[in-house]
């Protein structure tokens, strides 16, 4: 007789309710990470790094020792932690403004160093926290508060495909892009997140999982419309899949 399967708030999450807007998929990704951590590691084996972005309060949610890093610098902070605590599993959780705009140098260099950390990269194509400014990953055509006429390559530059770019480097052991816009993809996202953490445990070096995520509030969409936007608009621009695996 098999034990009953239980789906509930994972232990690697504290009791603090998320401050995210209704339907924001930041919450789904938090849960996935917490599940993976709980399945693989002891609580005291993990140290996390929160970004500056909507996930700034992530330190209230992940039930382990946590750092809050300066905007964009989480990979550098994680480097400092990992060097001092090489036996811990160290991860960062970062948005697209944080990781791909201000933190671009830190991201590329942590990847090139093959720093043995795991980065969960939330690509929602917007600056959620500060109220909807253009992100490096904002799609062409999208209106944001700093691309009020709709993003154009000429006026606002081209969306950056972070995973494709990092995949050219020696250093990363795993670079993959996933989505959480439906159950199938959520389950797949979990698999890749698990692999990323396992890679770290196995000493394989840098891994980054890019998660296409929603921002209903600043996209001006309902939570369901937002999921649809991911599948219909974001995935064509940011195709899912494993971009590098060593």
């Amino acid at each position, binding site marked *: 007789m098999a034990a009953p399967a239980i789906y509930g708030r994972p232990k690697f999450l504290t009791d603090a309710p998320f*401050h995210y*807007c*209704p339907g924001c998929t930041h919450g789904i990704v938090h849960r996935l990470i917490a599940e993976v951590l709980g399945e693989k590691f002891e609580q005291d084996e993990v140290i996390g790094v929160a970004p500056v972005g*909507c996930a*700034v309060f992530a330190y209230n949610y992940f039930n382990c020792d946590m750092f809050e890093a300066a905007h964009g610098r989480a990979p550098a902070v994680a480097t400092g932690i990992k060097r001092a605590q090489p036996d811990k599993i160290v991860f960062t959780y970062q948005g697209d403004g944080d990781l791909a705009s201000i933190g671009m140098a830190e991201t590329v260099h942590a990847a090139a160093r093959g720093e043995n950390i795991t980065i969960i990269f939330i690509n929602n194509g917007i600056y959620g*926290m500060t*109220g909807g400014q253009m992100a490096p990953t904002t799609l062409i055509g999208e209106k944001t508060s700093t691309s009020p006429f709709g993003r154009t390559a000429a006026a606002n530059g081209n969306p950056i495909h972070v995973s494709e770019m990092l995949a050219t480097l020696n250093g990363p052991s795993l670079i993959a892009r996933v989505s959480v816009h439906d159950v199938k993809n959520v389950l797949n996202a979990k698999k890749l997140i698990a692999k990323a953490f396992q890679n770290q445990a196995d000493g394989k070096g840098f891994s980054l999982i890019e998660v296409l995520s929603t921002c209903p*509030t600043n996209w001006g969409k309902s939570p369901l419309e937002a999921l649809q936007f991911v599948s219909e608009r974001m995935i064509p621009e940011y195709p899912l899949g494993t971009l590098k695996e060593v």
Partner: protein
Amino acid sequence: MNLQMIFAGFGGQGVLLMGQLIAYAGMLSGKEVSWMPAYGPEMRGGSANCSVVVSDEPVGSPKVEDADVVVAMNKPSMAAFEKSVVPGGLLIYNSSLIDDKPKRADIRAVPVPVSEISSELGSPKVANMVMLGAVAKLTGAFSAEELVDALRHKLGSAKEGMMQMNREAIDRGMAVAEG
């Protein structure tokens, strides 16, 4: 005159606009005015509030601590700002959404069922206009005309079509407050 006001409610209830219209109306009638929103991530999607000062002399602090008037559009707002009313001051609250009674006895608390009234008017969105009418009446500081003027100023001629409904809502608010 030195009128210190706080408007508070859910994000979608148009409390920031209410405050701005009062400030506009004050400006149009030659007063010194200021409007100051509370801001912060906790404001996003959640609650919203703003301070408005309408005064004969230059405004000192635009952030109102001791309010002559507090307008509470929902329950958490009343809970948060009842204490900010000066003794003898005015607390106007949306009794459609707030079933609790104010606790303080040293202030004048006026319930106005603005959500119900606006639903009656066929446009739940104008609850804030109903409230504005009530505020005008209860403070005696603005006429319906001044508020409509302010509205026209703020929204521009594009929205002229909505003026009728807004005007109606303001009038209903004034009438209810009177009653």
